[in-house]
């Protein structure tokens, strides 16, 4: 079993810590303006969007509530038991009548978000929009309208700032491209 090396396993830094910070501030200003006077709930999708959520909520200058959700992923432990996507952690409070913003780390195939949108629409929010730090359009299967987008990235396997490979690398402060040897050798 290969031992991960946080520095050596990064082929290149795609988005620096400074660039992320600036973009999150920019999004915070825009969201504070757009949702002024409204009842905004930020819904973060675990685990990848945790750092983005933590930074974004502090960049927003209007009152917000936050909530967390976790959805099983294909290929994970839940796949064998049910064969269907499952909500591993549901919302802790009602979103009925509230303005909801889904905070996502990355949107690639759009399959998870497509499921989540259908699920959350059923809870009758006043509005439901999406804020994604990273958009990887080359991988899209389901077209999703992204209302707030941080960066559009090329078709590479990225890690860091919440994004993982085998649950590792989430704590890197930047977005990096994982060396292909890491997943071909492991």
């Amino acid at each position, binding site marked *: 079993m290969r031992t991960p090396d946080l520095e050596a396993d990064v082929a290149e830094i795609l988005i620096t810590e400074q660039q992320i910070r600036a973009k999150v501030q920019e999004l915070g200003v825009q969201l504070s303006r757009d949702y002024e006077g409204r009842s905004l709930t930020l819904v973060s999708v675990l685990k990848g969007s945790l750092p983005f959520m933590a930074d974004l909520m502090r960049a927003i200058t209007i009152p917000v509530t936050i909530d967390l959700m976790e959805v099983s992923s*294909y290929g994970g432990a839940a796949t*064998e038991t049910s*064969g269907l996507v499952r909500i591993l952690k549901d919302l802790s409070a009602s979103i009925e009548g509230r303005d909801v913003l889904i905070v996502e780390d990355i949107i690639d195939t759009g*399959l*998870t978000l497509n499921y989540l949108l259908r*699920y959350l629409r059923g809870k009758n929010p006043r509005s439901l929009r999406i804020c994604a730090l990273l958009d990887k359009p080359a991988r899209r299967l389901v077209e999703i309208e992204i209302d707030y987008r941080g960066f559009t990235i090329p078709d590479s*396997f990225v890690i860091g700032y919440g994004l993982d490979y085998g649950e590792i690398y989430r704590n890197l402060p930047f977005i990096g491209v994982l060396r292909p040897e890491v997943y071909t050798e492991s």
Partner: protein
Amino acid sequence: MVAEAPTRDHPAGGRPKRRAAVLVEGPRFAHASEAELARILDFYMVRWEYEPRTFPILWNLDGQVVESFSPDFYLPDLDLWLELTTLRQSLVRRKNRKLRRVRELYPMIRIKLLYARDFRALMLKYGRLDVAASLIGADGQVMPGTPLAGSNASPADVARSGTAGEPADVIPVA
């Protein structure tokens, strides 16, 4: 070349596909990668139909169809067609040409072509890169009666028509 009469499997006529097919309940997947994609779509509750329509793309002077194209999947809720091709480059070129022709003749349909690299990336995303090689290219072609590579389930399990029943612990989608 003379077009063949339309049949149930080839409603537009044309030459039948020369592909090995998997005998399963429901659709007959010609390739393990198609079965895997169907499993992924099932997992995320995206309804799909397997090769539901054949698009004629070339006719002879008598107006008979001599070439046609049947995309692998149709996703009715998304009004999207998917074609998955994980075979060698010469076949990819042929498929690209067919796809261009489909887009010229049927500009209203939305169709996506997934190549081997796209499928590999999908497998990497879902932590199934270890089985990707067995699902791609000639290795993924399935002979009648053999189990699907990389599958934990029986072919019958994976060949549902996209209307999978929900276990009790699954929260239904509105």
